[in-house]
C-alpha cells in the first residue's frame, strides 16, 4: 500500500512541479519587470495572426491527411511499411534543417519554381505567411496522416467484409463507414495540430515575413530583444497560455487522439476499390511522399559532400548534443511514466492538464524566468546544460503523455488487480510489470523526446555557454559566412535526430 501510495503521490509531485515551473517562471518574469505591461497594436496583430495561421495550418493538415491516409489504408505495395515510417520523419526534423530543405525545394530559386518557370507557369511564394503555413503543414501532415490512418485501421475488418457482401460501392463505404470515423477522429487531429502551431516559434523566425507574419512567440522574443520589456513579454506569455486554454475549453468535448501514432500501422485494412481509384491513390501517395521527403533529400544532397570537411568542433558539439538529448529523453520518460501511472489510477484531471502545460508555455518566458529564479543559486554557465536538458524534457512531455496514458490505463485495467492480489508493488512491479508492458510507448516517447531535444536551438540564448550544442554550432557557422559547412552540419543534425528516434523506438519494440 505504501509503495502504491508513493507511486501515486510522485506523479502528483511531478504535475505540481510542472505547474510551478510553467506558471512560476511566468511570474518571475513579470516580477522582474515590476508587473505586466499593456499590449500595443502590433502585439494584438501578432495574436490575431497566431490564431489565424494555427487554424489554417490545422485545417490544411487535417483535410490533406484524409486522402493520404485513405490511400495508405487501402493499398498494399512493396515498401509501404518503410514509406509509412519515413513519412513520419518531418515531425521530428529539427526546424532549422526543415527550413533549409523547404527553401531548396519551394524557394524562389528552388527546384519546384524552376520547373514552373520552365513551363511558363506562375511561381509559388514561400516567404511570409505562406511559408509559415507551408512549414506547419510540412511538420504536422505526417502526424495527422498517422492519426487518421489509425482511425481507418480501427474500423473492424468485419464491417468492410459486410459492406462488400452487401455490394457497397466506394461511395457507400465512404458514407456508412469512413465518414462516421472521420467525423469522430478529425476534430481531435485538428485540435492537436492547432495547439502545436499556436506556440510555434522557430518556423516564423526562420522563414520570417516581417510584421505581417509575426506570431506571439516571435513578439515575445522581440519584446525581450528590442525593448527589453519583460513586462510585455510576460503579458504575451499569459495571452498565449490564455489562447491555448480557451481553445481547449472551446473544444473540451473533443478528445485529442490517444496513442499519438505509437504502435500504428497494423498493416491490415480494407481492400481498395479497383479502377481509376488505384491511380488516384497512387498519385496521392506519390504527392505526399514527394512533399514530405523531397526537402529531406535536398538537404542531404547539399550537405553530405560537406560532411568530411566539418571542423572537429562541430563533431564535439554533436557529441554534446547527443548526450544532452539522451539525458533529456530519459528525464522526459521518467516524468511521463510517473504522470501516466498516476493518471491511470484515476488522479484528478488537473494532473493530466499539468502534463499538457508545457505545450502551451513559451520557451522564451520559461528560459528567462528560470534565469531570474536560478541566478542567485548557481552561475548561468553551470546552469546552461542542465537547464536546457530539463526544459527540453518538459517540452517533450505532452507528446510522450499522449502516447503513454492510454497504455498505462489499459495496463491498470488489465493487470492492476492481479498485481495487487500478488502484492506486486514498488520496484518489482516496475521491473516485472510496468516497464515490460509499456516498453513500446516508452520507447516511442523517449525517441520523440530525444529527437526534439536534439533539434532544439537552446531554449534561450541567455544561457548560452562556451559549450555550444550542434544547432547552436550550425548558427555559428552561418554567422561566420560558412553556409556550405552549415549545410553539412544540418545533415549531421538531421541524421542524429533520426538515429536517436530510431534507436529508442526500436529499443521499445525489441521484446514485442
Amino acid at each position: 500500500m505504501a509503495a502504491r501510495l508513493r507511486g501515486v503521490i510522485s506523479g502528483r509531485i511531478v504535475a505540481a512541479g510542472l505547474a510551478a515551473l510553467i506558471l512560476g517562471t511566468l511570474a518571475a518574469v513579470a516580477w522582474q519587470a515590476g508587473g505586466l505591461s499593456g499590449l500595443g497594436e502590433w502585439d494584438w496583430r501578432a495574436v490575431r495572426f497566431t490564431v489565424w495561421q494555427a487554424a489554417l495550418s490545422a485545417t490544411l493538415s487535417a483535410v490533406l491527411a484524409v486522402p493520404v491516409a485513405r490511400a495508405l489504408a487501402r493499398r498494399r505495395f512493396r515498401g509501404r511499411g518503410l514509406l509509412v515510417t519515413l513519412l513520419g520523419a518531418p515531425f521530428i526534423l529539427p526546424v532549422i534543417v526543415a527550413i533549409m530543405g523547404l527553401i531548396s525545394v519551394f524557394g524562389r530559386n528552388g527546384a519546384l519554381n524552376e520547373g514552373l518557370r520552365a513551363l511558363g507557369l506562375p511561381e509559388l511564394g514561400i516567404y511570409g505567411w505562406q511559408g509559415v503555413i507551408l512549414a506547419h503543414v510540412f511538420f504536422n501532415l505526417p502526424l495527422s496522416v498517422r492519426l487518421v490512418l489509425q482511425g481507418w485501421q480501427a474500423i473492424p475488418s468485419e464491417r468492410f467484409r459486410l459492406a462488400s457482401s452487401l455490394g457497397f460501392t466506394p461511395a457507400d463505404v465512404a458514407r456508412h463507414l469512413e465518414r462516421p470515423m472521420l467525423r469522430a477522429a478529425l476534430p481531435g487531429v485538428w485540435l492537436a495540430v492547432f495547439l502545436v502551431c499556436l506556440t510555434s516559434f522557430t518556423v516564423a523566425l526562420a522563414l520570417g515575413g516581417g510584421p505581417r507574419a509575426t506570431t506571439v512567440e516571435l513578439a515575445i522574443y522581440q519584446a525581450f530583444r528590442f525593448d527589453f520589456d519583460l513586462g510585455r513579454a510576460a503579458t504575451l506569455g499569459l495571452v498565449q497560455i490564455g489562447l491555448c486554454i480557451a481553445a481547449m475549453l472551446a473544444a473540451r468535448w473533443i478528445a485529442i487522439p490517444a496513442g499519438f501514432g505509437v504502435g500504428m500501422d497494423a498493416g491490415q485494412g480494407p481492400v481498395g476499390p479497383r479502377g481509376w481509384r488505384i491511380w488516384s491513390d497512387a498519385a496521392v501517395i506519390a504527392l505526399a511522399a514527394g512533399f514530405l521527403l523531397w526537402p529531406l533529400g535536398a538537404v542531404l544532397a547539399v550537405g553530405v559532400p560537406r560532411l568530411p570537411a566539418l571542423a572537429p568542433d562541430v563533431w564535439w558539439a554533436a557529441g554534446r548534443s547527443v548526450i544532452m538529448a539522451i539525458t533529456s529523453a530519459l528525464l522526459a520518460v521518467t516524468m511521463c511514466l510517473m504522470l501516466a501511472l498516476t493518471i491511470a489510477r484515476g488522479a484528478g484531471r488537473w494532473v493530466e492538464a499539468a502534463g499538457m502545460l508545457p505545450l502551451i508555455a513559451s520557451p522564451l518566458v520559461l528560459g528567462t524566468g528560470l534565469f531570474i529564479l536560478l541566478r542567485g543559486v548557481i552561475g548561468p554557465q553551470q546552469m546552461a546544460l542542465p537547464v536546457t536538458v530539463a526544459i527540453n524534457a518538459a517540452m517533450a512531455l505532452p507528446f510522450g503523455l499522449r502516447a503513454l496514458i492510454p497504455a498505462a490505463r489499459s495496463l491498470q485495467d488489465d493487470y492492476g488487480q492481479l498485481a495487487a492480489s500478488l502484492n506486486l508493488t514498488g520496484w518489482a512491479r516496475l521491473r516485472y510489470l510496468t516497464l515490460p508492458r509499456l516498453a513500446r510507448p516508452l520507447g516511442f516517447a523517449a525517441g520523440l523526446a530525444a529527437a526534439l531535444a536534439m533539434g532544439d536551438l537552446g531554449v534561450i540564448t541567455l544561457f548560452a555557454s562556451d559549450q555550444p550544442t550542434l544547432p547552436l554550432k550550425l548558427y555559428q557557422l552561418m554567422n561566420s559566412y560558412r553556409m556550405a559547412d552549415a549545410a553539412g552540419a544540418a545533415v549531421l543534425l538531421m541524421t542524429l535526430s533520426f538515429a536517436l528516434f530510431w534507436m529508442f523506438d526500436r529499443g521499445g519494440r525489441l521484446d514485442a
Partner: protein
Amino acid sequence: MLELQDIAVRQDDFNLGANMTLPTGGRFAVIGASGSGKSTLLSLIGGFLAPDQGRILWDGQDITRMAAGNRPISTLFQHHNLFPHLNVKQNVGMGLRPDLRLDHDQQTRVAQVLDQVGLAGTADRKPAALSGGQQSRVALARVLLRARPVLLLDEPFAALGPALKAEMLGLLADIADDTNATVLMVTHDPQDARVFSPQTILVEDGRAHPPQETAPLLDNPPAGLRAYLG
C-alpha cells in the same frame, strides 16, 4: 472462518449489502443475474473495493482495510490471470515472491507445483505459447503455491470447453482439499454449482444472501433466479 459483518457498498444506482459467516474449508457457489453484484462481492472480499460500511474478518482478524496482496486470499479473475510477457516459471514464482528473488528451495517448489498440475517442461514458455487449458493450469499452480486459506474464483474457466472446465474444476477441488481452503466461486452454470459446491450464495436485489443448500435452491429457485436460469 470468513465473516462479512453489515457490509454495504453503493456505486451510483447500484448497491450491495452482505452479512454472512462462511466456515473454513467450505465451498460456495456465487450465483445471480448479470449485474446483480457477484463480482462486486468478490472484489470486496479480495480487497479491490473498499466497502462504505461494515467489516470483513478472517478468523476474527479485521481485514477490511488490508491491501489485497496481504490478505489470506488468492483470486482467479475472469481474464488476465497471467502476465503475458513473463514465462510460466516467473508467473508462478510471483506467488512466492513478487520480486522473483527465489532461493533454491523456492525454485524447487515452483518446479514441484508445475509438475503437480501437469505442466512439467513448460517452465520457460510464455503464456501465448500455451493452450487455454494450460494457461488455466499455470494460474492454478500459482494458487497452489501461495496456499492461501481463501480462494476466490470469478469465472476463470468460462472460456474453456465443457470437458476442460470439468477437468479444471476437478484439479481445483483437489487443491482446495489439499490446503483446506475456503472457496467462493462465481458461476452462471448451475451444473458447476451442483458438482462443486454443496452450498450457494445467492446475489439478488442488492443483497448477497447467506449460503443455502445448493440442490434445493436450484431445484426450486426464487422468481428472479428462475428468470435468469431460464
